[in-house]
C-alpha cells in the first residue's frame, strides 16, 4: 500500500524534518492571521501584535517576579513528581500485589477532574507557594507512577535472575538493572509528567496566589483582556513545545539504545 511505501521512503534525515517543522510553523502562523482577520483583532490578536504585546509584557519590571514565582513552583513540583513517581512506581512495579491493589485507584485518580479537588488542597495547604506546588505535583506524579510501574513490571524475569545470581545489593539492582531496563517507558512517563505538572502549577496559581503566570492569566481573563491572554498562551505554548521537543528527542534516543 501507498503508506507502507511512504513510511519506507521517508526516513527522517535532519534537514528535511527541520524543513517540515518550519513549513508547519509557517502554515500555523498564516492560519492564525486568517482566523484573526475573520473574528476580529479585538477577539484574537494577530501574530505580530501578539508578539509585540508579549514583548511589552515581558519588559514590564514586575514580569520577572511573576515568571520566577511560576518557575520555582514548577521546578519544585516537577522534582516531587519525577522523584516521587519514580520511587513509588518502582516499588509498586517490583511488588506485584501492591501494584495490583493500587493500579485501579491510581488510574481512577488520574482521570477525575482534579480541579474539583482544588478547594480541598487549598484548605489543607493554605494560600501560596505550597498549594501551587501540591497542585502541580498532584497532577504530575500519577502518570510518572503509572508508566514507571508498568515499565518495571515488564522487565524480563531473566534480567532479575541474572542480577540475583550475581548477588547484587538492592541498590545495585535498582541502578544497574531496574533503571536501565525500564528507562524508555520511564522517559515517556516523564514527558507526560512534565506537561501535567506545568498545567497543575498554572491552575494552582490561578486561584491560590497573587503572583505568577497563572495569576496574570486569571486576572486578564476576568478583565477580558484577550491580547494578554493570547500573548501568555503563546509564551506557554512555545516553552512547553520546546521542552516536549527536547524530551521527545531524548525519548527517541533512549528507545534506540535500550528499547526493543
Amino acid at each position, binding site marked *: 500500500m501507498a503508506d507502507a511505501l511512504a513510511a519506507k521512503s521517508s526516513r527522517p534525515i535532519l534537514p528535511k524534518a527541520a524543513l517540515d*517543522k518550519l513549513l508547519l510553523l509557517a502554515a500555523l502562523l498564516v492560519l492564525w492571521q486568517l482566523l484573526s482577520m475573520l473574528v476580529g483583532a479585538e477577539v*484574537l490578536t494577530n501574530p505580530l501584535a501578539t508578539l509585540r504585546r508579549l514583548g511589552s509584557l515581558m519588559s514590564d519590571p514586575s514580569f520577572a517576579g511573576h515568571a520566577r514565582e511560576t518557575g520555582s513552583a514548577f521546578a519544585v513540583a516537577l522534582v516531587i513528581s519525577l522523584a516521587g513517581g519514580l520511587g513509588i512506581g518502582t516499588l509498586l512495579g517490583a511488588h506485584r*500485589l501492591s501494584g495490583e491493589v493500587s493500579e485501579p485507584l491510581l488510574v481512577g485518580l488520574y*482521570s477525575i477532574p482534579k*480541579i474539583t479537588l482544588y478547594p480541598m488542597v487549598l484548605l489543607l495547604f493554605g494560600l501560596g507557594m505550597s498549594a501551587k506546588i501540591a497542585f502541580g505535583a498532584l497532577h504530575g506524579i500519577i502518570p510518572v507512577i503509572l508508566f514507571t510501574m508498568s515499565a518495571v513490571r515488564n522487565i524480563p524475569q531473566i534480567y532479575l535472575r541474572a542480577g540475583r545470581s550475581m548477588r547484587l545489593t538492592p541498590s545495585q539492582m535498582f541502578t544497574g538493572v531496574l533503571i536501565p531496563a525500564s528507562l524508555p517507558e520511564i522517559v515517556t512517563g516523564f514527558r507526560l509528567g512534565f*506537561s501535567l505538572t506545568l498545567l497543575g502549577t498554572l491552575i494552582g496559581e*490561578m486561584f491560590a496566589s497573587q503572583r505568577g503566570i497563572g495569576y496574570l492569566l486569571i486576572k486578564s481573563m476576568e478583565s477580558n483582556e*484577550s491580547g494578554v*491572554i493570547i500573548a501568555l498562551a503563546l509564551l506557554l505554548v512555545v516553552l512547553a513545545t520546546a521542552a516536549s521537543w527536547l524530551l521527545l528527542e531524548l525519548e527517541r534516543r533512549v528507545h534506540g539504545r535500550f528499547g526493543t
Partner: protein
Amino acid sequence: MSGMSRAGWIRLFVVSLLVLMLEVACRAGWIDPVAVIAPTKMAAGAWNLLASGSYTKPILLTLSNVAMAAALSVVVGFAAGWVLYRLPRFRRAADPLLASYYAVPTFIFYPLFIVLFGLNRWPLVAIGFIFAVVAMALNTLQGFERVPQVLRRTAQAMRLSPQQTLIRLVLPSCAPHLFTGLKLSIVYAFIGVIAGEFVLSGAGLGFEIAFAYNSFDNATMYGLMILLLGFVGGLNMLLYSWERRLYLRRGGR
C-alpha cells in the same frame, strides 16, 4: 468477571481503612473541620443534595455539555487521526506540538469562546471539545499505525478493495485503540467542562462546587465533589473493565 480477586479485597480493605481513619480523625477533632469534614458528613451532604432536587438542573446541564463535547471530539478526533496517519511527514513535524498540547490550560481561552459563541453553553462545550479531541486523534493514529503488516499483506493477497480492507480488517484491528480514545475523550471532556465551569461559568456542577467553596458551605461542597467523583469514577471503572475485555478477546496484552 467471577468474584473478586485477592488484590480486589485488599484494595477494598485499604480504602475502607483510610476512610475510617479519616472519619475517626475528623470526629476526634484532629483535623480542622473548616478544611475537611468527616466522610459520613460528606455522604450525608451528597444525599441531601440529591434528595432536595435543587441540584438536578446543574447536574443535567453539565452531563449534557460533556456528552456533546465527547461526541464531537470522537468524530472530529477520528478524522484528524486518520489525516495524521495518511500524512506521516506532517505528523512528524507536528509531534512536539501534539506532545505539549496538554501542558497549556486550554480553558484560558474561555473568554474568546464567549465572544465567539455568546454567553451560553457552547463555550463550555468548546472547551471540553478542544481538551478531548487530541486524545482521540492520537489514539486513532496509534491504532492505524499498529495494524500488523501481515494483515495488510493478507488483504492485498486476497485482493480486498480499499473499503473492504477498512471495514473487515483495519477497523477491527484498531478497535481497542479506538476504544481507548473514546474512553479518554469522555474523561477529558469531563475535565474540560468541569474546569471551565469551575473557573468562569455561572451554572453547572463545577460552578456549584466553586460557589459552595466560596461560601464556606463544606457539606454542599464535599457532597457535590463526592457525587461528581463517584459518577466519573463509576463511569471510568465501567469503561476500564470493558476495555480490558476488548483487549483480552483479541488475545493481546
